[in-house]
């Protein structure tokens, strides 16, 4: 295992309606020494948000509803203002509907720190974890 990386153990919440994606991220991130909690839908995620603490949340945008990810990131920021939230989505590449959370105006309504296009590989998530920890 990669011991050079010296990342401290991070507790990550991953919300996605693709069961296999959750399983894969869990396998990889746990192998890297992180703790992973998963939710397959909005209500499971809300339950976790209200009862547990975590260091990072990665949320799929479109689940039961078109805007599930926005709703959840809003909920997370309300309960855990300092916890970074990443929204992942296939929406950008598929519909051409584009949004970012860079300008102040966008940050006002998209309560996420980063938006990544699907598919997001675990290596990318590990990189983001390092960045967030360095910040």
């Amino acid at each position, binding site marked *: *295992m990669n011991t050079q990386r010296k990342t401290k153990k991070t507790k990550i919440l991953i919300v996605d*309606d*693709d*069961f*296999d*994606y959750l*399983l*894969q991220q869990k*396998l*990889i991130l746990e*192998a890297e020494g992180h703790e992973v909690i998963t939710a*397959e*839908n909005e*209500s*499971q995620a809300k339950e976790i948000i209200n009862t547990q603490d975590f260091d990072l949340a990665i949320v799929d945008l479109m*689940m*039961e509803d078109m805007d599930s990810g926005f709703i959840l990131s809003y909920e997370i920021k309300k309960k855990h203002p300092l916890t970074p939230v990443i929204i992942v989505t*296939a929406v950008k590449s*598929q*519909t051409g509907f584009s949004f970012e959370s860079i300008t102040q105006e966008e940050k006002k309504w998209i309560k996420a720190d980063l938006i990544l296009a*699907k*598919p997001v*590989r675990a290596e990318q998530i590990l990189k983001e974890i390092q960045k967030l920890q360095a910040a």
Partner: protein
Amino acid sequence: MTVNIDKCRVLVVDDEPEMCKGVQKILRNFDVFVQDASSRVTYEVDTATSKNEFFEAFTSKNYDLILLDYKMPEVSGLELLEYIVAQKKNTLVIMITAYATFETAVESTKLGAYDFLAKPFTPDEIRNAVKKATNHFVLTRRAQEFEEQRKKLRFQFISVLSHELKAPLNAVEGYLDILDNRFNNISPEDFHMMVNRSKIRIEGMRKLIFDLLDLTRIESGEKKRKLENVDIKQMAQFSADLFAEDAAKRNISIELDIERVGEFCVDKSELEIIFNNLISNAIKYNRDNGRVKVKIKSYGNKLRIIVADTGIGISESDKSRLFKEFSRIKNEKTIHILGSGLGLSTINKIAKLYNGNIKVKSKPDVGTAFVVTLFA
């Protein structure tokens, strides 16, 4: 029936201002009903009495119909006609001339004029010419709108389809990546789990492709329908046998209740799609130890197929989305059930071929019954 309102934008080009005003007056309160498009058309008439006025008007607005004087002092009507046709704005042109000869009519038509009107004309003559052109332009407009709509729907369908096809590929690729990069650190349990999940996703993708073929075959009408007398009971039994193993694994019973139904005139492959989809759904969305009941009745030329399960049911709000393409009801209970989201939409299309329909009755956590009615 809803009546569409179309506006026909007309430009009258004639060097005599009186002529322009006259036409404007005639068309002001005129309207035409186009039966085939159920559209009521009214007219908005602009005028141009010189070459400059014509170009100014023509470049600033899209006209549906232009009434064009054949002979104007500074420019020939035929030159303008050529110019209008070359712009490819789908503008219909009616040539108006005091020098009506067979030759001028032929020449105008050759250059792309839609119609020809000889001066002097009565108000009724001009109304008739405009009415004829209106029918043409409204039907062309409808055909264009229909084509645009069709392209849009096709694009949507393909976008969703590509997403549905990419999802299992991403899943399998994800597992292969893990196996490839982390082979030495994988427990035998995880290894088997990953191989197993990959196989399940591939199976789901194959099912999607089969369902897609069924759907396009029904939709395109490419395949010749072969209506013949079919033993309904035998086909239902065959389909039930096909899924008996899946049902047995979860201890679900399949019961056939088929009364006085002999042969019925249907396309065998279409009926097979109906039975296979409904019975496999009734197993997939059932609870363990549940029941599936297939009830078939016929009354005269009417055949009714009811497939009921004791499964998770469908909420009232989800029912309306059920028969749309790729519409899968996503919730905690269905997340681990594989489906293409095409089966019910295909059955719906088949039922329509028989002037029939598919209906659903359901109660969450009690069960669902699909009722398909076909007319031979």
